C-alpha cells in the first residue's frame, strides 16, 4: 500500500477502514540466508538495504521485544555529519545523504528536518579545533559554516550572551543537520523491508548462536532454532550480552545515557544547539517539547534509567545557556543503554567466526548513523567486504593501534 496525501484523503472519507497493517507478523521459517539479530533502527535499515539495494530477500530480523524498541526508540533524534576524523566523517556524510532522501525512498514520512545543528564555541582553542573540523567536513563533501558572536546574537537572541560564565564566542553550524522522528525511521524501514519479503519477527529473543568448527550455522531462539549461514548481530546496548553467546569479548562498555523532554511549547528553538561548556544539547520537537540531553551517567549499567546528579547537571547547563526556559517544565526523562566503545567510534565488521558479523559500539551517536550503518552493514553482508566509508570501523583496530578517537579521550569509554 502506497502512502500519499491522496490516500489519506480517500481513507478519511471512508472511515479509515482501508489501512492495511504496516508489516506482517510472520512465524519464523526454519532457515534463512541471513539472520539479523535486533529489529532496532540499524537492524531494520540493514534488512531494508539488503532487500532493496542488494537484492536479498530471504532474511529474518529477530527482535526480543517490539520492533524499534531499542535505542532508536529512546534518543534525542539528532542527525548530523559534523565529524572530524577520516574514519568517521565520510561515513556520517553518506548517512546524511541517505537521510536527505529517506522519505521518498521508504515512502514513509520520518520527518527529516534539516533545521541545522550548532556547536557553540567558548574559547579560542575550541575555535581552532572547530575550524579544523569544519575544513575536514568540507574535504569530505559536507557543509559547515562558522558563525561569530554577532551573528548568533541576531539569530538566537535568547542565549545568555551577557551574563555567561563561559562566554559564547561563536559557533560551528551544519545547516544540513537537524532532527528526524526517531520511531518513524524504524517504522519506515520495517515497512519497506517487510514489503520486500523480509520477515520481521517480534518477541523472538535469541538465546544462543550455533557455531560449528568456527562457522556459524544459525541461532537458538525462544521460538526454536533457526538456521542461517550468515548471522548479523545488530543489538547496540546489548552487544556484550549477545556477543558472549559467540564467546566474544568486546572493546565495549554498556553505559546509561539519560534524555529529557519538556512539556509542549509554542516554537522557541529553530534548530539543534549544543553547549559544550555545560554538557547540554537541545532541540524542539514538532510537537513542541524541548528535547535535551547531556552526559552519560558515567557508570556501567544495563538499567535503562539514571540518577539525579546528571539530571541536575544537564538542566544546569540548559539554564546557564538559555535562562528563558526556567518556567518550562521537564515532562519526562528516560535512560537508554549505550554501547560505549573504547575510542568512541563504532564497529561494522566480520568476526573471527566465519559467517558471524558484528555491528555495534555506536556510543550515543547511533541514531544519525542509522541509514549508513544499515547500508554499509548490508554491503558487508552481501559482498563480504567493508564499504569504503566504513573501512576503518574494524574490531581489531585497538590491537593495531589505529584509533578513531574524535574526542581524544583514550580508552575510557565513559568519556567519549
Amino acid at each position, binding site marked *: 500500500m502506497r502512502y500519499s496525501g491522496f490516500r489519506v484523503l480517500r481513507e478519511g472519507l471512508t472511515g479509515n477502514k482501508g489501512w492495511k497493517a*504496516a508489516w506482517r507478523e510472520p512465524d519464523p521459517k526454519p532457515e534463512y540466508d541471513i539472520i539479523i539479530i535486533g529489529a532496532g533502527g540499524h537492524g531494520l535499515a540493514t534488512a531494508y538495504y539488503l532487500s532493496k539495494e542488494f537484492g536479498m530477500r530471504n532474511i529474518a530480523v529477530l527482535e526480543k521485544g517490539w520492533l524499534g524498541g531499542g535505542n532508536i526508540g529512546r534518543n534525542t533524534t539528532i542527525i548530523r555529519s559534523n565529524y572530524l576524523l577520516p574514519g568517521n566523517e565520510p561515513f556520517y556524510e553518506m548517512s546524511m545523504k541517505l537521510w536527505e532522501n529517506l522519505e521518498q525512498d521508504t515512502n514513509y514520512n520520518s520527518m527529516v528536518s534539516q533545521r541545522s545543528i550548532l556547536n557553540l564555541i567558548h574559547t579560542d582553542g575550541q575555535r581552532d579545533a572547530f575550524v579544523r573540523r569544519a575544513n575536514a567536513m568540507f574535504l569530505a563533501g559536507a557543509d559547515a559554516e562558522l558563525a561569530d558572536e554577532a551573528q548568533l546574537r541576531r539569530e538566537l537572541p535568547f542565549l545568555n550572551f551577557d551574563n555567561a*560564565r563561559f562566554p559564547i564566542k561563536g559557533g560551528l553550524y551544519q545547516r544540513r543537520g537537524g532532527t528526524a522522528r526517531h520511531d518513524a525511521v524504524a517504522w519506515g524501514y520495517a515497512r519497506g523491508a517487510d514489503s520486500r519479503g523480509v520477515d520481521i519477527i517480534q518477541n523472538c529473543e535469541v538465546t544462543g548462536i550455533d557455531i560449528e568448527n568456527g562457522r556459524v550455522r544459525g541461532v537458538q531462539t525462544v521460538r526454536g532454532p533457526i538456521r542461517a549461514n550468515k548471522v548479523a548481530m545488530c543489538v547496540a546496548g546489548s552487544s556484550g550480552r549477545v556477543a558472549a553467546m559467540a564467546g566474544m569479548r568486546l572493546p565495549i562498555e554498556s553505559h546509561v545515557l539519560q534524555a529529557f523532554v519538556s512539556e509542549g511549547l509554542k516554537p522557541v528553538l529553530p534548530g539543534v544547539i549544543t553547549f559544550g561548556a555545560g554538557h547540554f544539547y537541545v532541540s524542539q520537537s514538532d510537537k513542541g517539547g524541548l528535547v535535551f540531553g547531556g552526559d552519560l551517567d558515567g557508570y556501567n549499567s544495563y538499567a535503562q*534509567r539514571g540518577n539525579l546528579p546528571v539530571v541536575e547537571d544537564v*538542566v544546569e547547563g540548559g539554564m546557564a545557556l538559555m535562562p528563558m526556559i*526556567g*518556567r518550562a517544565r*521537564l515532562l519526562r526523562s528516560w535512560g537508554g543503554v549505550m554501547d560505549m566503545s573504547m575510542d568512541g567510534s563504532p564497529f561494522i565488521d566480520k568476526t573471527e567466526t566465519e559467517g558471524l558479523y558484528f555491528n555495534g559500539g555506536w556510543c550515543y551517536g547511533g541514531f544519525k548513523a542509522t541509514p549508513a550503518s544499515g547500508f554499509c552493514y548490508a554491503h558487508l553482508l552481501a559482498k563480504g567486504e567493508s564499504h569504503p566509508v566504513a573501512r576503518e570501523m574494524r574490531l581489531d583496530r585497538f590491537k593495531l593501534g589505529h584509533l578513531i578517537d574524535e574526542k581524544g579521550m583514550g580508552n575510557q569509554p565513559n568519556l567519549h
Partner: protein
Amino acid sequence: MSQINRVKGGLIDRSTPMNFTFNGKSMQGFAGDTLASALLANGQRLVGRSFKYHRPRGIFSAGSEEPNALVQLRSGAHQEPNTRATVAELFDGLTATSQNHRGSLEFDLMALTDYASPFLSAGFYYKTFMWPKALWEKFYEPVIRSSAGLGRLSMDEDPDIYDKGFLHCDLLVIGAGPSGISAALAAGRSGARVILADEDFAPGGRLNAETLEVDGMSGADWATQALAELAAMDNVQIMTRTTIYGSYDHGVYGALERCTDHLASSNGKPRQILWRIYSKRAVLAAGSTERPIAFGNNDRPGVMLAGAVRTYVNRFGATPGQQVAVFTNNDDGWRTAADLAAKGVNVTAIIDSRDKPAVCDVPGARHIRNAAVRDTAGRKGLKSVTLTDDQIIDCDCLAVSGGWNPNVHLTCHQRGRPEWRDDISAFVPGGTLPVGMAVAGAANGALTLGAALAEGRAIANQQIKDLGFTASRKAAPKAEDEAFECSPMWHVGESIKRAWLDLQNDVTVKDVKLSHREGFRSVELLKRYTTLGMATDQGKTANIPALAVMAECTGKTIPETGTTIFRPPYTPVPLGALGGRARGHDFRPTRLTPSHEWAKANGASFVTVGNWMRAEWYTRPGEKGWRDSVDREALNTRTNVGICDVTTLGKIDVQGKDAAEFLNKVYSNAFAKLAVGKVRYGLMLREDGICYDDGTTARMSENHFVMTTTTANAVLVFRRLEFARQCLWPNMDVHLISTTDGWAQFAVAGPKSRDLLRKIVDEDTDLSNEGFPFMGCAEVTVCGGTPARLFRISFSGELAFEIAVPARFGNSMMEVLNKAGEEFGAAPYGTEALGVMRIEKGHVTANELNGQTTAQNIGLGMMVSQKKECIGNVLSQRPEMVGDDLRLMGFRPVDHSLDVIAGSHFITKGDEANMANDQGWMTSTAWSPNLGHSIGLGFIKRGNERIGEVVRAVSPVHGKEMEVEIVSAHFIDPEGERLRG
C-alpha cells in the same frame, strides 16, 4: 460574573476573598481555592482547547492528573505556560489566560481542524507531506509546529531564583492522605526521623474531599488533629506543597517544594526548592486516580471525573454544575450523587452500567440501571447526554466514574512492573519495588478508608522495625470501609461519535483501533504511534482505558496486553528548579589567580580558562586593539623582562621514600636519578600510549618533589597519580597533595629577568648562571624573609625563572615585581603573549596535545623509554601508532603579508583538496612580532623530511587558501642559547 456555583461548606476561607482574572475577565474566589475551583465557582466552564483538534475543554479533574485545564499563569517574564488550574493555588491578583488557540478561546480559528478530523487520524502525518520534498521544511513542518505546542514561553530570562537542598530521614512518607498520615503517626511515635510530603497545600488527601469520618470526627478534622500531633514531634518534618517527583537508586528521592507559587511575588526568596531526599525507607501513600469511561463526545466542558466533582463540592464549596448526572460502573460514583444532593445540588440521574440496585438513596435522582452514555451535546459546555437506549438527559455536568487506579508511578521509576488485580480491575505495584520502598493505602489497592488507615500504620511499623525502632503500641485510627464494588467498563461500544481516551493529545478509541489494524499492537508502539499518554499528564487518566481497548482488539486480557511503565518526574518539574542556583556567572565556580586584583587595576582583560580567569593582556593607554598590547608584551619580554602569573598550572607535592621511583613510572622519560635542586621536563602518556600531559617536576629534597601539570589537566593528573599509587603500586611509600592554590607563581622571563630577581630574592641566594643554572631549583626567601620557591625554567625560550610565594602574598608580589622591574622595562604579560612566545619557540599546548597525539608526532619519541616500567610505553609501540608519520612542524606563509589560519588543512601542491589528499592541519597560529610575520605550528605527514617544501594550507570554511613553507617548529633561538644564558 459572580460566584454563582458556590454551595455551603468546604475548607475555603470565605472571609478572605481573592480577586483574579481569567482571559482578562475579573473574578473572585476565596483563600483555599485552586484556580480551577474558583473558575467553577464563577461558572467558567470553557477553559482551554485540545492539542490537535482544538476542541473546547473544561476542567476534568481536581488534581495533578488534569489533562484539560492548562492555562498560562501570570504575565510578562513571569508567564508560566501549561499550568494545571487544578493545582494552582489561588492568590489575590492572580492572572491566567487560556492557551493553544488562534483568536479567542471562544472562537478558536484552529477549531477548523476538528472538521478535518477524518483525515487527521493517528499517524496520518507519517503517510503524507512527502511531496514535493522541499516543502517539508519550508511549509508543512512550520505549519505543524506553529499549531502544535501548548503554552508560550515569555522568551525573557526567568526572573525568579531557585534553590536546592538535601534532606536525610529514616522514613519518607509520600502523600499525606489517610494512609500517609497514619504511616507518619506510627513512625513518628516510634522516634524515627520522618519526612511527610504532600503535593497539596492542604494535607489530608481525599479526607478533605470526602464526607467520611475517622475516629468519630470528620476526616478533615482528624487530619488537622493528626498533623498537629506530627508537627509537635521534633523528629518529624511535614512538607506541604512538595511533590516527590522521582525515585532514584538507593533510597534517594527527588522532591519539588513550591515555596512562593501561592504568593503574588517571591520577594527575592527562592520560588521553589529542589530537594534531594536520602531515605533509609519509604512508604508510598500516593493514593489513587479515578479513571474515566470513553463514550462519544466525552470531552465536552462539564464532563468530569466523579471524584473530582465531589472534591469541588465538599472541599471547595463549588459545584461544577447546577444539574448534574452521574455515570458510573462502580459504587463509588454513587457517593458523588449523594454528596451533591446533600449540598442541595440537583442530581438528575444516576446512570449505572451495572444491573444492580441503588447503592444509596439520592433524593430527586433517577437511577438508570444497565445503561451507559453514548453521546453528549453542547459545544462549549455540556447540555445533555444521550444514553445507549437513546433517551436524552439534560444536564450541565456529567460526573463519570470508571473506578480507581492506584498511583503506582513511583514504583515504576526503577522499572518495576505493576501487576493486575482482577478484584479491583486495576494495576497495583508489582515486580521489584525501589529498594526500601513499601506501598500503603489506595496506592497499594486498599481503596477504602478503613483499610488505608490500617495499612498505613502496619506498613510504616514494618519499615521502622527493619531499622531497629520499636513501634508504638497506639492503635490505628478507625473508619468504616465504604462500598467500592466495581464492574469494569472502559468504553461504550455503542458510541458512534469519537470517544476520547487521551483528552489532551486527542487520542480516541478509533485511533487505538486503527493502531491495532496497522500493526502497532505492543503498548509501546501504540503509545508512539498515537501519542497516547505522551501529553503533560503522561496519560494518568488515559493509559489504562486505552490498554483495555487494545486488549479488546487483540482478544487478550489487559495484563497480557501489557502496561506502560511510568518514568520520572511524577508531575512536570520546572527547569528553573532543576537548575537551582547554577545560572549566569554562578553556573560554575570561578577561580581567580592571586594577582587578579592587581591585574584588574592595571588594564588586564580576562579570559576564561576552564574555571580560571586569567589575564589575557594588559592594555596600555594609546593601544588601539588587543594586538597592540600582545605584540608589545611579547617583544618586551624578549628584549627586557616580562612577568606572568602562572599560578593556574597544577602543582602537586610528591613525598615519600619511593617518590623518585614512582615518578619514574608515571613519566615516560627517566626521573629516578634527577638530582636534588634540579628540575626536569616530563612527558606523561596515557596507558594507550597517547600523550596525556607535560610539565616540569623539581626535586626539592631526596624524598620531596614538586610536580607541575598543565592548567587543564591538574585535577586529572592528580586522580591518575592516586590511581597509580593506590591501585598499581600500592606498596610504594609515596604521598600526594595538591598545592595549586597555595603558591602564587610568576614567570619572570627575558634577558633582564636575573637583574630583576636580584632585587627581590634575598641576597644569600646566588642567582648567577653558575650558582643557579638552567633547570635549577631552590627554596629561597624574598623581600626580607618571605619563603619562596625559585625555578629556572623557561616556556618563552628566554632566560627565565619562575618564582612562587605563598598565595596570600601573590597580589603584593605581582606589584613588587613590576615596581622593582621598572628600571629594566619590566611589564606584565598575559596568556596571549605567552601563547605567541610558545609558538615562536615550538612548545606544545592543548592545541597540540589534544588526546590524539603520540610522542613521535610532537618529535619527542625519544622521551618514551622502553627500558623501564612506565605507563603507556608498551601500547605506544603498536604498529599503526609507530607507523603514524604526522610530525609537528613550523609553517610560515610564503607571502609574509598573509595570516596563517589555525585549523586549515595541508594539501600537497598540485593535489586536489579532498580527504584522501589531506596531509595534516595547522594547530596553532600567531603573529610573531619578533619575526614580523604570521607563523603557525601544525602536524603534517612526514614533516621532518619535508622542511623547505611549500604546501597549500586550505580553509574552505573561510573560503581561503595560501601557500605555506614547512620549517622547523623552533622559530626563535633553535639552539636554546638564550635560556641557558
